[in-house]
């Protein structure tokens, strides 16, 4: 699986999920059109999005997705069309939500490599081989969680847990005794 596209650069640290998807929309039952709300809570957010139509890769700053656990933040990014998010770090719950929704969470801790990703016009992210290329050259490597990488490539977080119900029940019987 390779994600290749223009890059939207958002070099800002600590962008919380209220900025990604404002709380006032959490009462929407239908998930349709979430992309239209993306970054509405961030000053200048919608203008930034409009500046890079067609971007499927977003490169963000440190600790992106902090705050509220709302999976809506990831749903809105995915609904807008993003396939991968590149960051020096992601907040824990956002990171998990990304894995569970097929948004590839690419952690690039090295400041120079991260800066190169921010500066790139286009990136190519090889999910299986965990590499990032720009203009044909490898500029960074990253590591995905070995278990959750399977969920990204083949889906199936829920199916995986569903398949473990008997294991869990057997474990609780041992636990009680």
């Amino acid at each position, binding site marked *: 699986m390779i994600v290749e596209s223009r890059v939207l650069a958002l070099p800002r640290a600590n962008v919380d999920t209220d900025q990604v998807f404002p*709380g006032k929309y959490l009462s929407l039952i239908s998930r349709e059109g979430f992309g239209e709300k993306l970054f509405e809570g961030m000053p200048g957010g919608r203008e930034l999005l409009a500046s890079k139509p067609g971007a499927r890769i977003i490169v963000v700053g440190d600790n992106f997705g902090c705050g509220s656990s709302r999976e809506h933040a990831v749903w809105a990014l995915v609904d807008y069309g993003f396939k991968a998010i590149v960051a020096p770090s992601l907040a824990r719950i956002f990171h998990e939500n990304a894995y569970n929704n097929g948004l590839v969470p690419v952690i690039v801790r090295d400041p120079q490599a991260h800066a190169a990703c921010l500066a790139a016009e286009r990136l190519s992210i090889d999910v299986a081989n965990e590499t990032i290329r720009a203009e044909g050259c490898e500029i960074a490597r990253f590591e995905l969680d070995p278990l*959750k990488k399977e969920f990204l490539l083949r889906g199936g977080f829920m199916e995986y*847990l569903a398949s473990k119900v008997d294991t869990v029940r057997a474990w609780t019987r041992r636990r009680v005794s």
Partner: protein
Amino acid sequence: MTAERTLFAKVWDAHRVRDLPGNNALIFIDRTVVYELLGPPAIEQIETRYGGALYDPRRLVAVNDHVVPAKDSSTAEQAQVLRTWARKRGVLLYDVGENGICHVLVPERGLVVPGSTVVCSDSHTCTLGAFGAFAFGVGSTALAGAMLSGATIVARPKVMRVFVRSRLQGGATAKDLALGVVARLGFKGGTGYVLEFAGDCIAALSMEERMTLCNMAIEAGATTGICAVDEVTISYMRGREFSPGGEAFERAAAAWRTLVADDGAAYDAELRIDAGELVPTVTWGTNPGQSAPLEGIVPHDAEPAALAYMELEPGTPLRSIALDQAFIGSCTNARIGDLRAAAAVLAGRKVAIPTIVTPGSQAVKRQAEREGLHDVFQDAGALWTHATCGACPGLSTGVLAPGMRCISSTNRNFPGRMGAGGRVHLASPVVVAASAVMGRIASPSELEAPVLA
């Protein structure tokens, strides 16, 4: 001989169904909390894809908490989805009238058992770590996974001991300790860690204060916070609606008493704090790590973007900042002790700005009214509401307009958190109450003597 273990390791080991590839484990979940705002996507997944199958409905609890009562048709529909599902599937439901913020309601009903595991699709689930529980927020999909399988996948976090010695004094409260921890660690300094709180200061805190502290572990990016079980914990659990009674309670309590870190347990990191050095604290910026002493100034090295949003200049004394609204509420600071403390400041005084007091649960509300606190708040000119998350996440009963500045006993001061363009200063309930009286950020110590009837 077994190695010495941290408290977190004991809870982890007791719930580890099996290790999984990488750093992951399948962790059994004792209690899953589902609420109306972020629960319906999980309910929908379970109902449409898995025929409504639940691992064990008795391990679930459903709470109407975020927008109560519903403010429009959309929030009414969410509440209806929750209650219809709960009734159909035999899930314990706290509906409008006996509602509360779930992190307030769940402990007060005895639904968080010391040493247990809890998940909820809310980041402040870490509050329940006060009970020696491994309690953490998850997304709606992971919530659905726990509802279906009784377990979830967790990457084993590292453990940081946060050792707090001495006592809170000079007007500093558990909220100031929480803000102090976040400021010291930084807004993401706890990422990848469980914060295991220890030390004589923690032992001297009430359960409500421990909940306030653990509540804000997420604001340092931590997976959760956790406190050792002691006689304070056990005394809180005694007589709760879902606590065991009689002999069974004593047996349970004996087991709970083992929920402490072993002497000599090794930690991945340590933070040491002297509580005697903590002072009343207020945030000036746009994340909970950006705070300063109430008696201090906006720092000269403050982040420019945060200052621009907050419309503040470096060097400004915090106590000179004029306010448009005060709010006391939320899972951080809306328990009975918080309301008593705020009422003690407001007694015989009048608020100068719109002030909203929202109890954390209907049970807290009723207790406050038995004590006459509602009269104190209303005599002071504050609005006394029903229990809900309400204004804290900018959903109802006190949402800010652009440019409005609010001092708040809540947990987040993000841009737009309490309403688009609104500005939030986080502080303890007593500082919020004093500020409400003065119409600017203020300390209780600077108020003139109250006019008592």
